[in-house]
């Protein structure tokens, strides 16, 4: 199938600003799904609220655009009730880790076979540039006019600690790697997390004088490095890209099937 067959053209143009990274993620997701050769009928895309969460409406899957922060909870109901479906959950950093932080932790802990894509642009875009849990100290936001004093999260470390069995990170600059990581995450049986560092030139870029989309993407190129590279040893400030965790652990829906077997066995 052609890439454009995965898009609901009727609902374009999209609402993202010029230079936004979310469209690149949309592209990466489609390329991953296309490569897997999956039927559109097998995929349910569940999202929450925010700029990033609008991604579901543009894609021609079964799409569930829910409430702020709760996408993973809705997705858990979809997946457990029909485990044959592939459930992909695109979220923003505020959606996934602030209001939705508890669901993120527990979906990872359960190791339910859901693919979580965190589009991390370090800001609340839809509401106009307020600081998020990923903004980090020293940055500016419309609610941090004197600089932000909130410490940030490391999504990879948090997902790993919570029990996610596939954890990866990339950026919107590294589009080939992005599609490959999303593909691997969908294939992985268990809870998988892909952090995609993305740019919001409209708010994060403007507030922090990081220039336009091109400058912000160049910045993502220079501030990241592949896992285990020598560059990282020379400069510990660099953020690593790649697959951090890929392990086999009992998947929740399969474990529940065993509960059903046990219960039906007339114990």
């Amino acid at each position, binding site marked *: 199938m052609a890439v454009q067959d995965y898009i609901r053209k009727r609902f374009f143009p999209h609402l993202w600003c010029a230079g936004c990274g979310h469209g690149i993620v949309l592209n990466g997701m489609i390329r991953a799904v296309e490569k897997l050769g999956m039927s559109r009928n097998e995929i349910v895309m569940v999202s929450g609220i925010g700029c990033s969460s609008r991604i579901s*409406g543009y894609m021609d899957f079964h799409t569930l*655009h829910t409430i702020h922060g709760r996408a993973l909870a809705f997705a858990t109901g*979809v997946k457990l009730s029909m485990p044959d479906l592939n459930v992909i959950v695109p979220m923003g950093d505020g959606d996934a880790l602030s209001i939705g932080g508890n669901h993120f932790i527990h979906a990872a802990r359960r190791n339910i076979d859901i693919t979580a894509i965190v589009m991390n642009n370090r800001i609340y875009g839809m509401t106009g540039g307020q600081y998020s849990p990923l903004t980090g100290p020293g940055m500016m936001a419309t609610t941090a006019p004197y600089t932000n004093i909130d410490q940030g999260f490391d999504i990879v470390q948090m997902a790993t600690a919570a029990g996610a069995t596939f954890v990866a990170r990339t950026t919107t600059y590294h589009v080939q790697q992005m599609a490959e990581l999303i593909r691997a995450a969908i294939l992985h049986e268990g809870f998988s997390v892909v952090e995609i560092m993305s740019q919001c030139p409209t708010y994060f870029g403007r507030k922090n004088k990081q220039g336009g989309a091109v400058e912000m993407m160049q910045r993502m190129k220079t501030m990241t490095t592949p896992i285990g590279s020598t560059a990282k040893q020379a400069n510990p400030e660099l953020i690593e890209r790649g697959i951090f965790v890929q392990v086999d652990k009992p998947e929740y829906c399969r474990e529940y099937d065993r509960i059903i077997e046990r219960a039906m066995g007339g114990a």
Partner: protein
Amino acid sequence: MTKRQIKFIQGNEACVEGALYAGLDFFAGYPITPSTEIAEHLSARLPRIGGKFIQMEDEIASMCAIIGASLTGHKVLTATSGPGFSLKQEALGYAVMAEIPCVIVNVQRGGPSTGVPTHVSQGDVMQARWGTHGDHSIVALTASNHQDVFAMTVEAFNIAETYRTPVVLLFDEVVGHMRERLEIPEPGEIPLVERLRTSVREGVNYHPYLAREDGRLPMSDFGGVHRFNVTGLVHDMWGFPSDNPQIVHDLLRHLVDKIENNANRMARFNTFYLEDAETVLVSYGSAARSALHIVQILKERGERIGLLELQTLWPFPAEVVREYCSRSKTTVVVEMNMGQVCQMVKTTVTHPERVFLANRIDGAFITPMDIKQILRLIKGKGV
């Protein structure tokens, strides 16, 4: 004919039996007294029939999970009590907006906040009606005994499927924890409403939010041949977001009208000795048990007194209340709150000055003698 199964169980278990009879196959919940027995029993019962039970990380997640599971074509339930019901309100509004069939049990306890765990109360009647934000309508049913808990639970699933709406089962601590006899109807004895699925074939445009002539909206399960968008935003017939004033107006009207225009069809109630009653008690839930008890005592003494027991609280059965209270000299609403249904009765009848409240709000169960005393006060007979 085989013998009906008879059980001596708690009201919460009667709810479980009713839900399974109705075809429940997915439950998500979070522990909270006095509703926890529903989760406990379903964790054992559902996997035996191939159904799914999950204890979620919180009350909000439980509500969200059942909505997700409903979209794959399952009959779904969650159960909670006051504080949990507060937490579920946003997702409950989502189910209203996206028109997702689901059933939510609230076994009421005293509030606000943590309140008096876990003494009885009926303080959530208005929260059931207006708990979530924005103009909307809701269905809420209640019951005073286990046979009716069973029947109303089945009814809740039937209404949820018929009108594509969340339905609240507003039980209370006394009914939930009390043990009494339940006779389980045989399969087929109570008709079940199954999900109305679209007959639109693959490759033909399916509009998830385009009503048929009879007002019903056929559904298509996630995973099926029709791919569509579901959102809590105001949406068009495709399920796609819209802020077109005409679409906004029409959707809000549809969401309210589909419930309010069918208020009579959804009105469930019991009547006791109302033929010649000069004093009509209006009650519901466990309070109706005490109300019936005192009615029977006073009836034996020759008083012209009867009881209207409401089982549908929302949409408010205004015509039923008007019909049975119009001839009475005195109407007394018996409930365990500060008059949430009493206010509704007052706005419904032609003589609100003849409507009185007999209540308890202290966590103690309202007794027949409590009601008797209040009746004497109302009639100016002193204590």
